[in-house]
C-alpha cells in the first residue's frame, strides 16, 4: 500500500497534511457512490416486485409504500396450466446435470493434458486453446440439425450431452492451470509405491483438485442457470421451458407487460445465483483470477 506520496520521507508528508487526510475520505465516498449506482437496478427490481400494480408505475422510490406479496403468486401461477415451479424444476435439472458432467469430463481431460505424456499432446492442447476462443454461435445451426436428426429437440439432451464430452474448454483450461500447481513429487511418490496413472489420478490428483472442481461446479451452475441462447433453441414447448425462457412469457403477449409479476419472477430467478454468490464469493473471485492471470 505504500504507494506514491505516502512512501516519501516524513519531511514531505508534513506540509500537505490536510490533503493526505482528505484523500482517503474522498476516495471512499466515490467508491460508495459508484456502489450505489451499481446496486441500484438490483435493489430497484426487488422493491418493484413488492409494489401494487398502481404503485409500480407511479412510485419512483425503490421502497414500496405498501408492501404487497401478491406479485409472487400472480407470477407463479401466471399461466393457467403450468406454474413457474415447472420451469424452476427444468432449469434445476439441466443446471445440476451440467455441473456433474462438466466437472467429471473436464477433470479427466485436464489430467491428461497436465500430467501424462503421450504423442500429439501439445497439438491437442493447442486445439483445446483454440476452441476456447471459438464462438459457440458458429456451430449452432449444424448442431441443431444433428440433434434434430437424433430426435433430441425438446429434451434436455442437447444441453447436457455435449458437457459430458468436455466441450467447455474454459473449465479444462482452469483445471490444467490448477493441476500444474500440484507438486509432481506427489505423483512420483505414488508411482514408487506402485500406483499406475489411474492410481495417481484416483489418490493424488482427484482429492487435491477439489477446489478447482468446486469453482467449476459453481461457474457451471451460474452460466447454465443464466443461459438463454441454447435453451431458447432446443426447448420449444412450454412444458420443457426453463426459467429464462419462461420469463419472456410476461412480455410476449402483445407488448402489454405485467410488470409486477414479471419483477417477482425475475427476483426469484436471480435468487439462486445470488445465494451462490454469497456463499462462495471468495472462490468465485479467485476462480477468475487463476484462469485470468497465472498463465
Amino acid at each position: 500500500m505504500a504507494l506514491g506520496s505516502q512512501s516519501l520521507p516524513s519531511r514531505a508528508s508534513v506540509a500537505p497534511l490536510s490533503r493526505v487526510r482528505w484523500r482517503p475520505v474522498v476516495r471512499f465516498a466515490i467508491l460508495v457512490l459508484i456502489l450505489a449506482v451499481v446496486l441500484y437496478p438490483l435493489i430497484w427490481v426487488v422493491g418493484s416486485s413488492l409494489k401494487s400494480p398502481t404503485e409500480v408505475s407511479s412510485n419512483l422510490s425503490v421502497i414500496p409504500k405498501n408492501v404487497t406479496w401478491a406479485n409472487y403468486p400472480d407470477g407463479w401461477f401466471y399461466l393457467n396450466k403450468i406454474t413457474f415451479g415447472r420451469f424452476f424444476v427444468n432449469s434445476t435439472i439441466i443446471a445440476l446435470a451440467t455441473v456433474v458432467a462438466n466437472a467429471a469430463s473436464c477433470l479427466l481431460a485436464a489430467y491428461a493434458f497436465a500430467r501424462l505424456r503421450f504423442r500429439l499432446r501439445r497439438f491437442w492442447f493447442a486445439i483445446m486453446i483454440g476452441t476456447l476462443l471459438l464462438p459457440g454461435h458458429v456451430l449452432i445451426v449444424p448442431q441443431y440439425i444433428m440433434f434434430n436428426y437424433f430426435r433430441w429437440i425438446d429434451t434436455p439432451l442437447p444441453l447436457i450431452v455435449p458437457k459430458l464430452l468436455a466441450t467447455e474448454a474454459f473449465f479444462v483450461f482452469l483445471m490444467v492451470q490448477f493441476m500444474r500447481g500440484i507438486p509432481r513429487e506427489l505423483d512420483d511418490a505414488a508411482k514408487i509405491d506402485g500406483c499406475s496413472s489411474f492410481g495417481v489420478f484416483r489418490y493424488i490428483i482427484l482429492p487435491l483438485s477439489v477446489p478447482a472442481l468446486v469453482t467449476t461446479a459453481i461457474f457451471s451452475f451460474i452460466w447454465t442457470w443464466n443461459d438463454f441462447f441454447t435453451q431458447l433453441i432446443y426447448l420449444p414447448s412450454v412444458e420443457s421451458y426453463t426459467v429464462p425462457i419462461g420469463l419472456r412469457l410476461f412480455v410476449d403477449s402483445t407488448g402489454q407487460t405485467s410488470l409486477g409479476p414479471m419483477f417477482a419472477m425475475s427476483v426469484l430467478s436471480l435468487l439462486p445465483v445470488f445465494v451462490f454468490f454469497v456463499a462462495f464469493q471468495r472462490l468465485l473471485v479467485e476462480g477468475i483470477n487463476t484462469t485470468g492471470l497465472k498463465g
Partner: protein
Amino acid sequence: MALTTTPTTAAPPPSAPAGGAPRRRRNEARAREAAAGYIFLSPWLIGLMVITAFPMVFSLYLSFTNYDILSTWDMVEFVGFDNYVRMFTNDPTFRKAVVVTLTFGLVAVPLKLVAALAVALLLNRERRGVGFFRGLFYLPSLLGGSVALALVWQAMFSRSGAFNEFLALFGIQGKPWVNDPDWALETLMVLAIWQFGAPMVIFLAGLKQVPVELYEAAAVDGAGRWRQFWHVTLPMLSPVIFFNLVLETINGFQGFTSAFVISNGTGGPVDSTMLYTLYLYTKGFTEFRMGYASALAWVFLIAIGLVTVVFFSTGRFWVHYSDGDGN
C-alpha cells in the same frame, strides 16, 4: 488411439538380458502412460470430433447450399458462393448488423475496461473493506447476462421507467430509450458496462503484483502520481489489459441475450439492436434459412479469427512481460 495400444501389449520376456531390462521397463511404462493419456483424453476427443469439428465442416458445406430445416436432403441445392455474394451485395440488414456489432464492441468494451481499471485503481488504495467492495462490484457480472436483468433494463429505460423519473428530478425530459432507434443500442451498452466487475477483479489482482519498489524508485526520481501511473502501472499491467481486451472484445461481439430480450427477438427498433448473433438466429431459426445462416456463421468465425490475429500481432508492440514469459 490405435498408435498407442500396440506397444502396451509387448510384455518383457522373463529372462531379458541384464542391460536391456531397465530400458525396456522404462519404454513399457512410457507406453502405458501414453495409453492412459488417450483414455483420459477420450471424452474430450470424442467431443471435439462430434460436437465441434464435424459441425464446423458440416456448416461450411451448408453455407454453399440453400438448405432449410423443412426441406428433405434431396431438395437441397448446391448454390456455390451465392449466399456469400448476396450477403455482401444485396443484404442491407447484414450490413446494419455488422455496423451495430462493431459499434457495440468498439464503444462498450473500451468503456467497460476503463470503468473496470478506474474502480480497480481506487480500490487498490483502500486498506479495509476491499473484499466487500470487490464482491459487490463483481455481482453484476454474475447476474447481468440473464434474461431477468435484460427485462429489468427494458423496464428501467422505458418511457415511464425509473431512469426518466430520475432525469425528471433535474427537469430533463426523458425519452423512451429502448424504443428509440437512436438510443436502444446505447441502453444495451450501459447494461454491458454495468458488468465491469469481472475485468475489475482481474485488474485488481494484476495491480497487487506490481512491485512496490518500482513506485518507490519512480517517486525518488521525482515522478508524480500521473507519471507513476503512466510509466509504472500501465506497462506493468499491460499483460492483464491485453487479456481483458481480448476476452471482452470477443465476448462483446457475441452479445445476444440482452439484445434479444429488449427488442423482443426482432433486433428493433429499425434494426438498431440487430447484433450479429441475433441476425444469425433470425435467419436460421425464425426464417429457417439455415444455409444462409451457416454462411453468416462462417463470415463471423473468420472475422473473430482476424480480430484475434490483429490483437496478438499488435500485442507485441505494447504488451510488456516483465518475466519474459508469454501469457
